[in-house]
């Protein structure tokens, strides 16, 4: 009956998005996304993509170009934009004009990231910068510069817990679990539940280990392919895990168990199917940075962990 009561939903909504949260968690998210996005951006040659011969761009829909304000044939300009985006990401990570840096880098990544694949597909998901765009923009809309910055205002003790620090972190966590949830949903809605069947997983493993152009690791993939029970376990386990990760938003237990398992999950995919998923470090936004900072502090000063009451309070709330 509780479910039919609107006040129960409103209370739950408020508790989820606006429980008092720590400024450290938001600052840590800013640093994580700044460093991670800089790493991926500088690992790519997005500016040079603009300088490809015009024939490569000849079949690109005009609306796709307009959507990202991409005008092919200007690698010099794109190089300048990559430089500005890199500086902004450094600023975001270091906390120099943090909100402005997040806004500028988020908007520039919206323009730059699609260059990687725009010649054939207008949505560059799974290439490493999808979540960065919306995460950096979300951070720019929030008070992400109240702590852990190089400027004077962000040094010293963090401000007291506030609901303004909670909803942005919750959004970032939501973006991340949506990857897995919709990945499972897409498998079920496009292929059906038989996606998880042993024969389908065996086919995937074989294809990924037989295709010489992506075949770097092959032992684990062929080992799984040769064992029907292992194939069924991988298939069912994948769907259960991908759907189940959504619970990490609501349950501390799920966060403790499932979020670390994501790294193992992707290591398994890499070793068996030769597919890389770069976003794993972003899952650090699920960590409680108050507790981690206190532990780090005690290690550095070789003193027993002293947790002020406010920190304990924060640890109980978020993330």
């Amino acid at each position, binding site marked *: 009956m509780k479910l039919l009561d609107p006040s129960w939903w409103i209370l739950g909504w408020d508790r989820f998005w606006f429980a008092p949260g720590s400024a450290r968690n938001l600052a840590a998210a800013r640093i994580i996304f700044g460093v991670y996005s800089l*790493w991926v951006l*500088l*690992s790519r*040659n*997005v500016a040079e*993509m603009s300088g*490809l011969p015009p*024939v490569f761009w*000849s*079949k690109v*829909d005009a*609306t*796709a170009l*307009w959507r990202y304000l991409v005008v092919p044939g200007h690698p010099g300009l794109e190089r300048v934009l990559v430089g500005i985006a890199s500086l902004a990401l450094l600023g975001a990570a270091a906390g120099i004009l943090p909100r402005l840096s997040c806004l500028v880098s988020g*908007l520039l990544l*919206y323009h730059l*990231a699609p260059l*990687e*694949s725009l010649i*054939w597909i*207008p*949505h560059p*998901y*799974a*290439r490493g910068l*999808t979540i960065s765009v919306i995460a950096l*923009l*979300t951070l720019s*809309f929030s008070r992400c510069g109240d702590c852990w910055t190089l400027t004077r205002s962000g040094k010293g003790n963090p401000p007291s817990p506030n609901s303004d620090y909670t*909803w942005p972190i919750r*959004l970032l966590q939501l*973006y991340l679990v949506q990857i*897995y*949830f*919709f*990945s499972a*949903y*897409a*498998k079920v*809605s*496009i*292929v059906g539940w038989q*996606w998880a069947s042993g024969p*389908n997983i*065996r*086919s995937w493993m074989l*294809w990924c280990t*037989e295709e*010489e*152009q*992506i075949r*770097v690791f092959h032992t684990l993939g*062929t080992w799984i*392919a040769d064992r029907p029970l292992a194939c069924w376990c991988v298939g069912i386990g994948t769907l259960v895990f991908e759907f189940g990760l959504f619970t990490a938003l609501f349950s501390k237990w799920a966060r403790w168990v499932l979020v670390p398992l994501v790294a193992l999950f992707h290591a398994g995919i*890499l070793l068996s199917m*030769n*597919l*890389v*998923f*770069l976003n794993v470090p972003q899952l650090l936004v699920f960590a409680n940075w108050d507790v981690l900072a206190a532990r780090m502090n005690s290690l550095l000063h070789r003193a027993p962990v002293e947790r002020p009451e406010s920190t304990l309070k924060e640890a109980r709330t978020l993330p």
Partner: protein
Amino acid sequence: MKTNIVSLICFIAFVTGGLLVAFTGAFLCSARRRRLTNIFLLLVLFISFAAGFTQHNLWPFSSWPVLAYPVPTGGRYLPLPRIMGVDDGGREHDVDYRAWRPLALEELLSWIKLNFARLDSSSRDQVGAYLLSAANRAREQAITPAGLPYPNRLFGPLTAPTHMMHPAIWSSPENVPRTPFVELRIYEDTWNIEERRLDPKKVDRVLIFAYRPR
């Protein structure tokens, strides 16, 4: 086209809503500020869940259709392009994936699969000339002691890999062809995964394009 327009509208709505929350917050009382934040949160939830549940990719709000298609179990997988360099002795060689930079190999192969057949012959020759010159340039770099560079020299081996792994077949100089390529060929490979499990060489290869400078 529709998806591009809708995606752009969603992105603009997201940025506008966020900026409103960020900049008007200071001028509003806490109740109004909370209401505005709630509207923004509902907007983000609506866009992101709409992208996922309708499976329309409204990037950067993605539908994440990762591996969401079946691999044919008994039959053959869709043909996959494979680019080969040919030396003056007529021998064919695979080309290291790093040769195609700035193009990632998976982007290049997907572009060929989707668009190459739709190009006229002069455009195809332009592609052939570009790829042949890139392959030869990379071959020359690969036989030097420094080898083929990483996209970012600063990061070196810590450079972020692409979504698909690729073997670095020209990592050791002895694996690099000694003489320049004089021709570029694009094949389409197809195979039955069960047959190839037993015999790795069981691949059907069809030549779809060859380019030799005149």
